[in-house]
């Protein structure tokens, strides 16, 4: 089994009377992992501890096998951080800033310059890089933030709400960049975000926190696996189709209509391949018989959204 990327054991941190982290224990594998949780769940505290900006009150955590407290310097060289807030000086150019950050990570001057140029190309900043950051759009600024996180060749990227403030196109591009970073560049990514749809698209696994504790840590496949239900959407005489379908699947499945969807429930018992195919063919044939258009037929997948809602009971005004 591969060594975990991040291994936290009973990690706790107290601020005054508040336990920001309360015996947080988790083992995060390499790859792209999403970190989700309500505001105040302890995500930022956990990130700050990993980065060495805050000391834990108790417990331990290691990153790539190195203890965060004892090997703080080694870890800094291994981690790239992209904060959520605005953190760029407006009067430096993107290229200058990225090079400067490279030097601050200990890269020799000419190496910092070269890597800065490379990394800016990878994140998609071209002539703009020579202009002051104050003149950048949000999209360009986010790219510089990502570039400075990559310039020193880290092994792990920690991204806090990386698509914040971006319009849909910018969001797409940033997500694509992050996916490339994880898959092509070979870095592991820890990504904190409120946008579950985005996480579903690029993460291999999710870590969910609430009130300083772990709620769950699972792979994406486990979380959004296919359920046993089939969802069908047709265009045309819906009642006629439903009747035809019911006739064909009687005894094998239940047919229910939800708004414009038809849900075919096959129950939780393990199904033989034949049974499943029978149902698929039933739908197909019912479509032909009822002379409707088959717009959609797919297995209903669990969505992160559902999970999130069910597991965090309303905490009302507190957060």
């Amino acid at each position: 089994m591969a060594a975990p990327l991040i291994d936290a054991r009973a990690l706790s941190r107290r601020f005054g009377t508040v336990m920001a982290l309360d015996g947080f224990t988790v083992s995060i594998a390499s790859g792209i992992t999403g970190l989700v949780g309500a505001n105040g769940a302890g995500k930022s505290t956990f990130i700050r501890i990993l980065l060495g900006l805050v000391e834990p009150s108790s417990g331990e955590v290691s990153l790539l096998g190195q203890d965060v407290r004892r090997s703080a310097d080694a870890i800094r060289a291994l981690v790239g951080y992209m904060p959520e807030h605005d953190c760029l000086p407006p009067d430096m150019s993107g290229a200058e800033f990225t090079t400067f950050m490279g030097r601050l990570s200990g890269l020799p001057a000419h190496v910092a310059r070269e890597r800065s140029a490379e990394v800016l190309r990878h994140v998609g900043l071209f002539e703009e890089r020579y202009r002051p950051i104050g003149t950048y759009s949000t999209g360009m600024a986010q790219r510089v933030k990502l570039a400075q996180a990559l310039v020193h060749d880290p092994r792990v990227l920690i991204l806090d709400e990386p698509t914040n403030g971006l319009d849909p196109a910018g969001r797409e591009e940033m997500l694509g960049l992050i996916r490339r970073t994880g898959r092509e560049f070979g870095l592991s990514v820890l990504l904190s975000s409120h946008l579950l749809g985005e996480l579903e698209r690029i993460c291999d696994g999710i870590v969910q926190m609430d009130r300083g504790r772990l709620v769950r840590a699972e792979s994406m496949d486990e979380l959004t696996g296919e359920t046993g239900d089939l969802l069908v959407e047709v265009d045309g005489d819906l009642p006629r189709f439903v009747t035809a379908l019911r006739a064909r699947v009687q005894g094998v499945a239940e047919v229910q209509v939800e708004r414009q969807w038809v849900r075919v429930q096959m129950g939780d018992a393990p199904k033989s391949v034949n049974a499943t195919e029978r149902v698929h063919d039933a739908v197909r044939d019912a479509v032909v018989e009822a002379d409707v258009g088959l717009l959609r037929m797919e297995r209903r997948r669990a969505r992160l959204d559902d999970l999130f809602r069910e597991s965090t009971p309303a905490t009302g005004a507190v957060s």
Partner: protein
Amino acid sequence: MNTTAVAPLAFVGVSHWYGDVVAVNDVSTVVEPGITGLLGPNGAGKSTLMQLAAGVQTPSSGKVLVFGESPFARPSVFARLGIVPEREALPATLSARTFVEARATLLGVPDVRTAAREVLAAVELDTVADRPVDGFSKGMRQRVKLAAAMVHGPDVLLLDEPFNGLDPRQRAHMMQLLEQQAAAGATILLSSHILEEIEGVASRMLVMVAGRLAASGDHRTLRRLMTDRPHTVRVRASDVRVLASALVALPDVLGVEITGTQLLVRTSDYAAFARQLARVAQQVSVSLQSVQPADESLEHVFRYLVAR
């Protein structure tokens, strides 16, 4: 359908510019009761449109009508509008209750205390209403702003990026609140960059690109209207090659791409294809395992509109 005269919110040939920059360019549309989403890339003019709707400015040309009257400098119209701007600095030392009550007083609400209490309860801030606002998290601040915007029971709510910084549960909660308002007859115009949020709650969309109104309506219908772009449908079947060769024979099928166990079909007439797919599969005795339109999501529709 309301005529422009009595629609909750109507834009008639509205243009607005700042010097050389045309922020809004000839926008005409009517916003009905219910939740309407306002989408567009950065700089498309959404915030300006919101400001014009709120009566903060009067348009350089054209008319903005709230229930038939211009909202600019008209207290009677203001009273029917509620606004949650994107950037609004909350005075740090005031308590939530004080802020909401102040807003209520300003808008001439008869029973300020009760109205404030009710609306704070609706946004679930009643237990912390007397704490100063600077101790609040982002999510709580958004809720304070929403409460202040709703305290006078407005008929029209204008919200600019209201879900910013909210975690999924808070977002879901706020959406519920908005849906309640909409069910009670309010007209809500909601701008956001996050399509997955808007998709869940808005029944109609207005898409702005470079100051112009690029499209309005339900996104699925919009997609079907885009006849110049072929639809892409993803099909999984028991024998993709056989099915593929049968589908290629259809007149509306422009192309079929085979990747592993999956077919990507490009068709010029989605509705016609939907009718023919099952029939063809039946004829060649192929079992269909899944059928999914590959580019019908709001994301795709938006991308096409913006790229045009």
